[in-house]
C-alpha cells in the first residue's frame, strides 16, 4: 500500500461519467483513469468484433483505434450522463466507430495511433473458436463477455487485496446452505463460527467491490441493482 496506490483506489469509486468529464477537460490523471477503466472492458469489444467476422489483427486494430478515437476526438461528448451505462455506451460508440472506420479503412495505417493499449490479445481469443453456432446475437455475447470481464476484474482485485483468497474463493458462488462451515473450520484450524465469519466477510467484500465496480460503469449509482439484475439475466440466459 504505497501512497500512490491510494489515489487510484479513491478513483475506483468514481463513476465513469465523472472521469469522462474530467478527461474532456484535459486532465491527464483522468485520462489515465479512463484508460484503466477501458483496459478492463476492452475484451468484450474485441470479442464482439471477432464475432462479427473480423480477423484477429483487424479487431485488434479497431479496438485500439476506437480507444484513441474516444480520447482524441469528441467521442466522450456522446456520453449521456443521466441514463448512461458504460456498457451500452461503449458498444454504441464502437458500432458507430466501426461504421465510420469501414469507410476510411484504407486510409489508416496499423499502429498509427498515438495511444497503444498494451493488452493480452491472445487471452481474449479463448473460447472464440470452439463456441458452436448459436442463435444468440453478437450483442448478447457482448453483454455476456462484459459481465465476465466485470466479475473477473472484481475477483482479480480481491485476489490482490485478500490474503488466502484462493482458499475462500469457491464459496463465493455457493448458496450458504451448501457451505460446510464445520468442515472448512476443521480444515483451516478455526472454529465453525470463525469460518462462517470468514466466508461472510469475503462475500461482503465481494458484494461491495462488485457494486463499486458496477457503479463505476453507470451514470447514476442508484441503478446498481438494475444493472446487477440485467447482468444476471444475461449470465443465466
Amino acid at each position: 500500500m504505497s501512497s500512490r496506490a491510494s489515489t487510484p483506489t479513491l478513483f475506483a469509486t468514481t463513476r465513469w461519467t465523472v472521469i469522462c468529464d474530467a478527461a474532456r477537460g484535459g486532465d491527464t490523471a483522468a485520462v489515465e483513469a479512463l484508460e484503466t477503466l477501458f483496459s478492463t472492458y476492452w475484451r468484450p469489444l474485441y470479442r464482439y468484433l471477432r464475432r462479427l467476422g473480423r480477423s484477429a489483427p483487424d479487431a485488434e486494430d479497431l479496438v485500439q483505434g476506437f480507444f484513441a478515437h474516444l480520447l482524441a476526438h469528441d467521442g466522450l461528448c456522446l456520453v449521456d450522463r443521466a441514463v448512461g451505462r458504460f456498457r451500452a455506451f461503449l458498444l454504441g460508440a464502437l458500432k458507430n466507430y466501426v461504421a465510420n472506420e469501414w469507410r476510411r479503412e484504407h486510409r489508416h495505417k496499423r499502429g498509427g495511433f498515438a495511444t497503444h493499449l498494451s493488452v493480452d490479445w491472445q487471452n481474449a481469443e479463448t473460447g472464440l473458436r470452439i463456441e458452436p453456432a448459436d442463435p444468440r446475437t453478437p450483442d448478447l455475447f457482448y453483454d455476456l463477455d462484459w459481465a465476465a470481464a466485470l466479475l473477473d476484474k472484481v475477483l482479480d482485485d480481491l485476489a490482490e487485496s485478500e490474503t488466502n483468497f484462493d482458499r475462500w474463493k469457491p464459496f463465493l458462488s455457493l448458496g450458504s446452505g451448501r457451505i460446510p462451515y464445520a468442515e472448512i473450520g476443521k480444515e483451516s484450524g478455526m472454529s465453525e463460527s470463525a469460518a462462517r465469519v470468514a466466508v461472510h466477510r469475503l462475500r461482503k467484500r465481494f458484494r461491495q467491490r462488485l457494486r463499486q465496480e458496477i457503479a463505476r460503469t453507470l451514470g447514476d449509482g442508484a441503478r446498481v441493482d438494475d444493472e446487477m439484475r440485467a447482468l444476471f439475466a444475461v449470465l443465466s440466459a
Partner: protein
Amino acid sequence: MEPEKKSLCPECGNPLPAGGEHHLCLACLMAQALASRTASEGGKSCGATPLVPPAEIQAKFPHLEVTECLGRGGMGVVYKARQRSLDRWVAVKILPPERVGEQKFADRFAREAAVLAKLSHPNIVTVHDFGEVDGLFYIIMEYVDGVNLRDLLREGKLEPEQALSVVPPICEALCYAHEKGIVHRDIKPENVLLDRAGRVKVADFGIAKILGVNGVDSADETGVPDNATQSVVGTPAYSAPEQKSDPQRVDNRADIYSLGVVFYEMLTGELPGKPLEPPSRKVRIDVRLDEIVLRALERKPELRYQQASVLKTQVETIAAEMGGASVADAATRVAPDSSPAGSAAVRLDPSAAALGLTKRRWEIVIWGFILAAACVEIGLNVTPVECGWIIGIVGVLLFLMSVSLTVLAGIDVGRLKIAAQIVLLDGIVVAFIGIWCAFHSPGLPDPWAIAISIGCGGGILYCLNGLIKVGRLESQTTDPLGYIAFFFAIISGIIPTIFYWLKPWAAPWLSPAGQQFMLWLTLLAGIAAVMLGFVARKLRFGWQATVIGGLNVVIWLLFFVAGRMSPLEAGSLDTPELLQDETLEIQRDGSIACQLKSSSINRTGHSLDSEQFNASSFLQIQKITDDQGSPLKFDVETGRGDLRRYRVRLEPPVPPMGSVTYVSEGTMVGLIHAKGEPGVFEYSMDHSPGYDGITRHIERHKLPTGAQLVWKNTTDLEEEKVGDIVELHIDRRIPSHGHIAVRYRYKLGPAPGTESTTSK
C-alpha cells in the same frame, strides 16, 4: 477441452465457463451477490450517493488515507482509512450533518465522546479520536475487519450454539459500559461486529445519545424535544418500550431488551412479533432459552434481567449443557489470541455448568423437601382430630408465604415463579393430607370431618391456584411433560414415605387390597417418572424427575427383593406360630397388646411391641377378619384360632386419639391413653341409646375434686382405681349416634377410699 467439461458448478450443475482464470460459475456468483443483498440496502451502500465524497473526506483528514466507504446508516457514514502515523486501519464515522445542526450538539458531542473514549474493553469497538472539521463531526474508531451480525442474519437464523456464543461477549460489553453508567441505546445486529477471528465487538456505544435519538438528552436540555430528534426513532424494532414512551428514564435495562430482540432474531431469524411467540415454538431449541429471551423481552423494565451479567451467566450455563465441549470449544476458540481479559470474557464457569441447576430450581427442591418432611413429622405426632387444625395452620402459613413471596416478586419475575411453584407443591401436600385424613378417620365426629373436608378442599383449590399461576407464568413455554414427570416422581416418593413412616397408624385402616394398590402405584409412578422424565430431559424438571423416580424405583426394589416387610404389610403379623402363644390384651393405655414368644419375634424381626395396635383407646374387639375382610374365628381370651395371617379390625372404628368410646349404661368404665402431660387423660364415652336423659342433656360436668377414676377392663370387668378425677366435662354430642365425648382430668395415683362418681 476435456478438463473444462469435467468442472461443473457445484451450485447449479452447469459447466464452468471456459477461459476464466477463477473457475467460478459466473451466473451463481452474480446470483449470490444479488441474493444476499436486498434492494433496500442498496440505498445505504456507498455505491449510491455518498453523503460526502471520499475525496472530500480525504481532503479533510490529511493524516489519514481514506480508502473506501464501508457503509451508511442513520447514524452517519463510515469510511475505512489508514492512519499514516501509526500505520493502522481505522474506521472514520462522519455523523450525519442534518443531525449536527441541532442545538447544543457540539457540547453534547464533546461531552459524550469523551466518556466513550474512556471505554476500553475487548468486546467494545475502541474510540481513538473524535472532533470536528469544518462542521463535520467525526469519530475515529478501531477498524474491525469482519462482518456484522446483520450480514450473518441475512441468510436467516444462526445455529443455537453460535447464537449462544455471541450473546455472552455482548453481555460483557454491556456490563462493562453499564458499570460506567453508559447505556448503548441502540443495540442491533448492525452494531454487533464479528472480526475475522470470530471475536465479538459492540460498536456505536452511546452514539444514539450523542445524536439525541428518541429525544434523549435534547429533551432534557432544551425542555422541549426537538422536531428533528422526534423524527428519528432510532431502530424501533430493537428499542425497548420505554425508549418510545419515556425516553428520559431509559437505563441499562433498555439495552437488555434490545439484546433480547437480537437474541430472538438470532435464534429464530425473525423479529419478535405481537403477540410474542416463544422461540421454541418456531425452532427446535432448549426451552430454557425461551425463559431467558422472554425475560429479556419483558415490557416492564422491572421484570427484565436487571444486569447483563445475570443474562450472561444463564446463557453460558445452557451453552455448557447443550453443546458441552463443542460450544465451550467454540466459545474459547472464538478468541484464540485475544488479551487475557478477552479470554476471560468467554470462559465458562465449570462448576455452574456441571451442576446444571440454577439456584432457583434448587430452591424449589429444597422447599418441597422441607415441607414434605414437616408434613410427615406432623402427621406422625398428631391425632387425626388435630389434623384439621394442622392443615388449617399449614394452609395459612403457606398462604402467607406465597403471598409475601408474590409481593416481593413484584420486582422479580423469578421469585414470582418460585412463589407459584411453592403454592402448587404445597397445594398438593395439603390436599394429600386432607384426603388421607378424611379417608382414614371415619370415626371422626362430624365437625372434625367437616374441618378436614374444608382443609382438603382448600388444599385442592390451593393446588389449582398454583397450577394456574405457574401455567400463566410459563404460558409461553408450556410443555408440561417435565412437570408431569416430576409429579410422578413425587408420588413415587411420597406414597412409600407415608406408608412406611405412618404404617402403625395408617395400616390398620387401609385394606390389604388398598395397600397392594398403593404399593404398585408407587412402582408405576416411579417408572412413569423415569420414562417421562427421560423423554422430557431437556425440559424443565425433566431430568430431575428421571433421577428421583429412578432412585425411588431402586429403593422399592431393594425393599422388595430383600423381603423386608414392605410398607404394605404393616399391621399384619404373618406367623402361624404367633397365634399359639398370642394373647391379645387390652392395656391400660388403651392399646391392644399381643404377647409373643421370642421365637416369633426373631422370625419377623419385628417386636410386637412396636406392632401394638396403637389404638390409643379402650376397645372391645368385635370382629377379626382375614386379609379379604371375611370374619375369622379367633378367641381373644385363649388366642386360639385357625388363621395364619390375621388382622384385627377394631369396630367401631378407632376414634381419634385421646378419646375413648365405651358402651355402658351411663357408667364410665374405661380409659385411656396417656399422652401429653402426665395426669391429664382424655376419653369419650358412649351412652346407651336408651338412656334418654343423657343424650338430651349434655352438659359439662365438672367432677368434684377428689373424685376417683375407676378403670374397668372389658374382658374381665375388674375394677381398678386409677386416680382422682379433678375435672370432667362432656363437650360433644352427636345425637344420631348417641355418642358423647367426655374429657376429664384426674390426678395420677390411687386415692384410697374414694369411689368414682363419674356417672352421668
